[in-house]
């Protein structure tokens, strides 16, 4: 009797525990899968079958039709679908990888170095921003205004910047970084639009990639900072004593040990950029539209075209699921086991 409640080893649940676990996991899996099942079923319906009430099982309740799939994949919308799909497939992984590369180095830096940006330097920077606005207000072109402000900033750094004793710490830097995500996108789309208009980058993939990298950097930095700080510092100290440089320590010790965190973070950023809607709506007009725009466009004047939407949503999930299945195995236990021993 007792063995039913006893687990054989760590992380192997007892028989009763296993049954309970399966019941809970099964319930939650149903909660997750049922809405998706409904999407699949809806994608095989025609408009009258949606309008006349709920039909659950194809062939039994209603006669499935491939109309919506044909419309999206080979019919009228196929050109748009293909173009937007290829845009999404190019933009999302590139931005995710770039954000991960930049963000992980910054995360390592924040976890292992001590930064003390002087208050004077920050004040000088804010002052120079105000100065450039004033100069632009007086009618000077923005390029010249920026050069003037940058020059004044460098001079101020050399002179006043070092006088101030007070300084901020790593946590303040990290909070400043995460605070970049606090303003809702709706408030920043127009200024960002203006920036890319001046750079002549509107309706290019580069504009989308730059925006996505910067908007996802804070998330990468915060998640990776925690992963990096759980890596035992003894390893790095040993390597340092053996003469490894900071770059080598980062590349050959920290990165391999942070793989589970890197994979999880990569998945997020990929998903965020894959699905981003509002910024894409503004920064792309025709050439570089992404798939979420196609989905929203199915809410036509005749009401939402549920069947087309379902097809598009399903098409959009498939590549991400494949990536998730491939990457999931790397988020495994045991990468740190034994690393600190001996």
């Amino acid at each position, binding site marked *: 009797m007792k063995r039913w409640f006893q687990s054989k080893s*760590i992380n192997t649940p007892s028989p009763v525990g296993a049954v309970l676990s399966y019941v809970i996991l099964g319930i939650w899996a149903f909660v997750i899968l049922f809405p998706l099942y409904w999407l699949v079923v809806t994608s095989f319906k025609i408009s009258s079958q949606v309008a006349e009430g709920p039909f659950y099982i194809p062939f039994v309740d209603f006669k499935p039709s491939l109309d919506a799939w044909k419309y999206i994949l080979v019919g009228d919308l196929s050109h748009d679908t293909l173009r937007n799909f290829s845009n999404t497939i190019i933009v999302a992984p590139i931005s995710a990888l770039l954000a991960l590369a930049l963000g992980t180095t910054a995360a390592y830096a924040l976890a292992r170095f001590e930064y003390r940006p002087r208050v004077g330097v920050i004040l000088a920077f804010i002052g120079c921003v105000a100065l450039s606005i004033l100069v632009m207000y007086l009618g000077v072109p923005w390029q010249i205004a920026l050069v003037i402000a940058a020059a004044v900033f460098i001079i101020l750094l050399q002179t006043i910047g070092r006088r101030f004793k007070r300084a901020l710490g790593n946590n303040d830097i990290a909070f400043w970084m995460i605070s970049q995500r606090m303003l809702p996108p709706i*408030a920043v789309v127009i200024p960002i639009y203006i*920036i890319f208009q001046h750079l002549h980058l509107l309706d290019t993939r580069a504009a989308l990639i730059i925006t996505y990298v910067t908007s996802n950097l804070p998330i990468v930095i915060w998640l990776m900072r925690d992963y990096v700080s759980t890596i035992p510092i003894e390893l790095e100290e040993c390597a340092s004593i053996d003469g490894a440089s900071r770059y080598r320590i980062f590349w050959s010790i920290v990165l391999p040990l942070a793989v589970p965190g890197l994979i999880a973070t990569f998945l997020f950023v990929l998903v965020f950029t894959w699905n981003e809607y509002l910024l894409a709506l503004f920064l792309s007009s025709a050439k570089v539209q992404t798939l979420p725009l196609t989905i929203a466009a199915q809410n036509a004047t005749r009401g939402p075209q549920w069947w087309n939407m379902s097809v598009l949503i399903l098409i959009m*999930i498939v590549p991400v699921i494949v990536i998730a299945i491939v990457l999931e195995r790397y988020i495994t236990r045991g990468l740190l086991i034994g690393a600190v021993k001996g």
Partner: protein
Amino acid sequence: MGWVLSFLVDTMTSETKAPQPSGLHTVIATVERAAGSVFILPSVLALLFLSVFPLIASLYVSLARFNIAKGGFTLTFVGLDNYKKLFLGTDQTHFLGAFAPSTPLTWVVFGGAVLALAIFLARYLLNARVAIGGLIGRILLILVLGALTWMFVHTLWNGGRLGSISVTLVYVFVGIFFQYILGLGMAMLTVQRLPGRRFFRVVFLLPMMITPVGVAYMFRMLTDTSKGPFTPVWQALGLINFSWVNNAWGARTAILIADIWQWTPFMFIVLVAALESQPVEPIEAATVDGANPWQIFRYITWPAILPVSMTLILIRLIEAFKIVDLPNVMTNGGPGTATESLTLQAFVNWRALDLGGSSAVAYILLFLVTFFGMIFVNLIRHRTIETL
């Protein structure tokens, strides 16, 4: 290049200068000393590039009135008019809520909150070290929390109506609570050595992969009481003529369920990674010493996942304040404005070409998120992590 790097090191880090060697060693030493800047500067510059201008531009727009004019648009500076409209003018019931008269109950709840805040301040003042910055921060905290409580107790019951600030706060705190609990529970179940756990892990990730607009439309289908899949359930309960969309709390619940469905995977996957990268030795040792599962969780697992948990909650806190797709698509903010979040209000203003009003709402949202983020980081995150 070398002087730039060393200059940046001098200004940004406090690392002490090593004695200067010569020749090749100088280069190596400079590069090595610059490591701190090399690692962090790319991110700082990238963030500055797209953050400074939008922040200033939208602040200016929030102080102006936007008009379409011949050949473009004009921005007229109007001072604080847009903000005045939200707090005192025509948008007050929309933004703050409709205030009901005070009753004994509201006084009791509000009095309790004031008492708690007073105790909080008194404990800080009686403490040995009182810093000016900490004192100002705490007084600001008490004023804002007090005002929010005052607003909440007067709009929640007996004839009051919640404004978009309160609705957003409900979405944020209720949503995050359930997402974290569910995410942690499922993560702990799937790190057990069970056959088929990889299947569950991938399934549990699915909701996050659907584009938010798509999730919103999907839940609009599901919550339809006459054509959605749950119609027989509503019929059996005699609720066939009931519509989520006509009941304020019903509509809010529907949006919360969709939000929890969509974002639990975010908590789940990070917590799985955190649990998986936790060293096994302490758990083995504790088991040998006869610790029970609860003790192992409380004293070994929990401290190990606490830092990541705090980060997760902070990120979700920031993201959840910006909720817009779900209420916009599922209920269009209705009934009335009962499900309208702050971002949706900004979006609605923006669609009506009231860019000034839209930016004003966005700036108040920015203030609120910064406020709660600061509280979270300074009072909760640091404290919990330091006391480990």
